[in-house]
């Protein structure tokens, strides 16, 4: 027996490392990552092919902006799976015993999925540049960069907001299927239907407003309201539930 208990030198760093590792050490997580990357690459190839068929230069800025759509859908799903996995598989029986400060574990999950989402986007951007450059050399067509920084910013925002909203909802609901249904309903049903009944209040209630204002500017109060409703409140509920829920 050790006799002396030594603290883990950097508990949050260690927990982030473990969470990052958990994101890629199962077959299902690797398949999800592969599917996301494949979807991104297919979009890139399709974009390049359409540009070539029209004899137009490849617009990198537009290509990256188009990638924000799968990022906005895929990022919440990845974070939902990461946040709820321990509860679904009862792995928290093990990890809560090793780190009784459950808030540290939840924060580590948030950080891990954010890093993971951004890294995935970075890879897809790199692939986009590589495919475009290769195609350009092969067909002697031009590459247009346009407002590249704006498109990269859009991609980063879509990814980070997607990760955070997925993580917040997942930590509040603690159920993979419930959280996925909630996020899909929020994105594809609620945001559309609320416009029919809420009138001028619509941007204050829509979940997409926060990302839209961050990337294109607009009503800051509406963005704050959207962030509070769809990220902050679920996040606070999630922190409270994760810290207090009995593992039975």
């Amino acid at each position, binding site marked *: *027996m*050790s*006799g*002396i*208990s*030594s*603290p*883990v*030198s950097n508990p949050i760093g*260690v*927990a982030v*490392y*473990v969470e990052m*590792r*958990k994101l890629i*050490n*199962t*077959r*299902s997580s690797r398949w999800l990552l592969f599917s996301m990357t494949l979807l991104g690459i297919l979009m890139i190839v399709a974009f390049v092919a359409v540009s070539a068929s029209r004899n137009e230069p490849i617009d990198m800025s537009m290509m990256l902006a188009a990638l924000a759509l799968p990022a906005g859908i895929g990022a919440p799903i990845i974070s939902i799976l990461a946040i709820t*996995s321990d509860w679904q*598989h*009862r*792995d*928290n*029986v*093990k*990890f*809560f*015993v*090793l*780190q*009784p*400060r459950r808030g540290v574990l939840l924060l580590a999950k948030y950080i891990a999925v954010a890093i993971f989402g951004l890294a995935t986007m970075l890879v897809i951007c790199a692939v986009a540049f590589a495919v475009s450059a290769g195609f350009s050399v092969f067909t002697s067509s031009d590459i247009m960069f346009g407002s590249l920084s704006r498109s990269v910013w859009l991609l980063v925002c879509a990814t980070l907001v997607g990760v955070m909203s997925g993580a917040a909802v997942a930590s509040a609901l603690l159920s993979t299927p419930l959280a996925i249904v909630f996020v899909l309903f929020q994105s594809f049903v609620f945001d559309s239907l609320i416009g029919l009944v809420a009138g001028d209040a619509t941007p204050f209630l829509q979940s997409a407003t926060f990302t839209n204002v961050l990337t294109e500017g607009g009503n800051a109060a509406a963005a704050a309201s959207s962030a509070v409703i769809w990220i902050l409140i679920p996040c606070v509920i999630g922190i409270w539930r994760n810290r*207090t829920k*009995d*593992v*039975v």
Partner: protein
Amino acid sequence: MTLRLDNISKSFGNIKAVHELSFSCAPGTITGFIGPNGSGKSTTLRMIAGLTRPDAGSITIAGSPFHELLNPGEQIGFLLDPSAHHPGRSARETVTLTAAMMGLPIQRVDAVLESVGLASAGRRKVRSLSLGMRQRLSLAIALLGDPKYLVLDEPANGLDVEGMSWLKASIRRFAADGGAVLISSHLLNELESYVDRVVIIDRGRVISNSSIGDLGGTEVTEVDGPHRSEIRRVLQAEGIALADAPHSANERISVMSSPEHVGEILWRNGIQVSLLHRKPLESLESYYSELTSPEFAAVSRTEEGK
């Protein structure tokens, strides 16, 4: 330097799972923790692990509450649920993640897998492991941090004969090295052969807490007469513990005392007796059977209030 539970209580809705439960486990000892299904054993062990919060009372490990331990895995190891591992991870990866959380070197992973006999199964996914192998994996995780305390919930489930002997030897060795073990099990004959103390709970309450050597000296008397309720009332008023909660008014009464003492009390109170019989207690199992109710044991608040 003990694991101490002081008056802990826990309810789920109107079900009182654990009620003012107290006991402790000292270094170098193995404490058996037994009780019927639903008596509150697993809830108690989960409260020690901080997975479930007690409504009242305190639990300390070497004087500190669990949540204040710097690196809990180096103080106390738990085997609570052999199925609580992601089925898609390999056995080795499962232990590696645990080691990373505890800041332990990777060499420790191989050493502990070797010690529980899973070195050759390290690459296998958890879903492909038998229950016995998952028990060994869980024990590997419990032992990983070289802790001073072990809390084991039904660790023998799914183990074969060789596995049982190995488990028993491992637990004995751990205690001999100065560790404290708290182990719950339904295999009473097995448990009796290696525990030092036994805590029996029923309906969320400790009904016996004694060293295994003292069990032999316990006397149980079966008593009967035409006025059973009067016999119960008088004996309880005299501080004699009923060995078993009566399940119907027609059952004979068992009490934790000698026939001589019981007879003297009933004679003094003028109560007619038709049977006064010393029941032999030859084993932990017979002692346990005398003390506990055979029914599903959790008791509701409303039931308790009657």
